[in-house]
């Protein structure tokens, strides 16, 4: 097997060959862009702090089209029974798994495999898929568009408040390590609303690489509540772009939770396309071991009168690392833009590292923009206070970590997804309880 670098050095065209002419054109453009840019180099500022070497120098096997029986059983256990009032779509190694999905809506919404949708409705790809592949700066985003074999597509008709909650599972099967290109495309018609959970799941401990791309289009007045949760996975990596396009008066509420795997680079790009749109973005990462998280956020205020709010928190134990890199770009003429960028880090060990770089690019006067960042440790006075009430040192630390982290959960508008997050975090806290921070 050849490693990833060599594999794509040798390959001259994207691997998938089928699909509609539009799709083929998009793939070819994306692949050309990927070849033109190349892999992130040491002097690329926005990849500088990502430990990409081991990821690129690893050889990846093709993931099987179907999970083996034991993998399928493990997946079913992890998925659990479908809660009443939920619909679910499952991608396994980037392929739509009809047998694990259940996508019956009470209204005319559609949830299903992306390639099928694109074949049935070619204009879909023209208008909404991988917009402007020629200008993409992130090679992994280009590569996903060139190489994705399937994905999941959610479409909510105009003026429809989706009664069902939507679960989108991006599953990495056991074995490998594998390379997969899961993709999500979601479109909320004008005046539509939906609440969606994106759940990343790893069934094996292998160092599989997930190159994920998510695109959400919120048309005029649409409202999307999006929660994204990733559990631990000791060895793997995920590199993801999430593009969110907000038309006039659209409203986005996004909360992401990461407790692993070893390397996550997440690039979230909010692009305001119409006036009066609002985006609330928040994230929480609770990391241990040598895990690293590179959180990149862009709020592109290309039109007047839009609001973006960012609040990211990191809890870092052991030798874990987190970087928050955020750019608010206020274009000329985007008057009345309103933005906040805030990042808080809690370091539980001397080896943990956090960096926060909130940046502002303001190209007109009439704006209200603020940013801030703070990094600290557990306060010995708080620990002592809790211990005088009978809590052990470990219990006191756990309680303080929870208090720090759960502020983010408290801001989530959908209590059902908040419970999911709480479950993911509970295991994490237990693992951190033995941690001893700086005295």
């Amino acid at each position, binding site marked *: 097997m050849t490693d990833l670098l060599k594999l794509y050095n040798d390959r001259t065209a994207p691997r998938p060959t089928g699909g509609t002419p539009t799709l083929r054109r998009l793939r070819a453009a994306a692949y050309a862009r990927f070849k033109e840019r190349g892999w992130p180099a040491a002097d690329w500022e926005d990849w500088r702090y990502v430990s990409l070497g081991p990821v690129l120098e690893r050889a990846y096997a093709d993931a099987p089209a179907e999970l083996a029986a034991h993998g399928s059983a493990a997946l079913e256990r992890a998925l659990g029974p479908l809660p009443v009032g939920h619909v679910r779509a499952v991608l396994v190694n980037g392929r739509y798994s009809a047998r694990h999905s259940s996508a019956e809506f009470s209204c005319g919404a559609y949830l299903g495999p992306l390639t099928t949708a694109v074949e049935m409705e070619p204009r879909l790809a023209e208008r909404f898929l991988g917009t402007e592949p020629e200008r993409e700066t992130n090679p992994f985003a280009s590569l996903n568009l060139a190489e994705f074999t399937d994905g999941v597509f959610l479409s909510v008709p105009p003026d429809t408040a989706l009664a069902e909650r939507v679960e989108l599972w991006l599953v990495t099967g056991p074995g490998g390590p594998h390379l997969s290109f899961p993709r999500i495309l979601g479109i909320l018609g004008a005046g539509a609303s939906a609440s969606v959970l994106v759940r990343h799941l790893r069934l094996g401990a292998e160092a599989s690489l997930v190159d994920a791309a998510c695109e959400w289009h919120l048309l005029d007045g649409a409202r999307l509540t999006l929660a994204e949760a990733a559990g631990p996975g000791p060895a793997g990596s995920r590199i993801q772009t999430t593009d969110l396009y907000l038309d006039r008066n659209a409203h986005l509420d996004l909360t992401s939770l990461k407790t692993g795997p070893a390397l996550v680079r997440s690039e979230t790009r909010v692009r305001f396309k119409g006036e009066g749109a609002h985006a609330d973005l928040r994230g929480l990462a609770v990391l241990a071991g040598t895990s690293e998280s590179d959180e990149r956020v862009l709020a592109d205020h290309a039109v007047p009168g839009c609001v973006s709010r960012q609040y990211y928190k990191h809890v870092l134990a052991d030798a874990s690392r987190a970087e928050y890199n955020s750019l608010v770009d206020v274009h000329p003429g985007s008057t009345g833009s309103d933005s906040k960028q805030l990042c808080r880090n809690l370091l539980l060990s001397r080896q943990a590292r956090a960096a926060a770089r909130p940046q502002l690019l303001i190209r007109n006067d009439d704006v209200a923009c603020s940013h801030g960042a703070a990094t600290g440790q557990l306060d010995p006075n708080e620990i002592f*206070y809790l211990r005088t009430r009978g809590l*052990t040192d470990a219990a006191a630390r756990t309680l*303080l970590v929870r208090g720090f982290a759960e502020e983010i959960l408290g801001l989530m508008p959908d209590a059902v997804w908040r419970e999911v997050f709480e479950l993911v975090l509970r295991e994490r806290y237990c693992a951190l309880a033995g941690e001893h921070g700086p005295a």
Partner: protein
Amino acid sequence: MSGKVLLEIQGLTAGIGEREILKGFDLSVRAGEVHAIMGPNGSGKSTLSKVLAGDPHYKVTSGTVRFEGKDLLTMEPEARALEGVFLAFQYPVEIPGVNNASFLRLAYNAKRRHDGKSEADPLEFDELVRERMGVVSMPETFLTRSVNHGFSGGEKKRNEIVQMAVLEPKLAILDETDSGLDIDALRIVAEGINKLRRPDNAMILITHYNRLLEYVRPDHVHILANGRIVRSGGAQLALELEKKGYDLLTAEAKG
């Protein structure tokens, strides 16, 4: 006063870093007693409370502290709490994100486990905590708020008394619980303290002024100066102190 001895402090010398603050402090407290320790700023009042609670910032260089015959100084802070020692902080710590109800239940259940009793479930505990909140008329909204976060000075001090009411310590040390309270808040807190007085527990009130002692009548008053007790007496000593001031009284003591 025929209660058994709860706390026996002998020759306690302690401080921060190289600085000695307590210099041979002695005190004996029996069950059922309320002791007031009064003294000017810097006399060592807060050091005493922190040392008894086990604050790791403070270093004990000599002396002994026995609580119900056990060596208190070798115990971790949580062990002291579980044995029944409680410190009401002069400056209660704000803990954003941790709500009062779950914090109190954690603390209460830690004590229950230590006492070999079963833990209270959320419903049982809810009933108990609401009853105990009544001691200082704490409003119901307090339960869902973060511990001391954004509380007024008076609310913080009342919260300390609620914790004390829930944990039912054998020995409570109240470190300037009266400071920063207006007259109404002082009365509420003092009434709360009086409700928690029992023949089988004891309290040490650390205070700068006589105010609190007008509501909570102490059995013994001690005047602390320069790290040791220079005078002891009954409740009338606090009145005398108020008339004469610390300078005169400590001068008399030296003379």
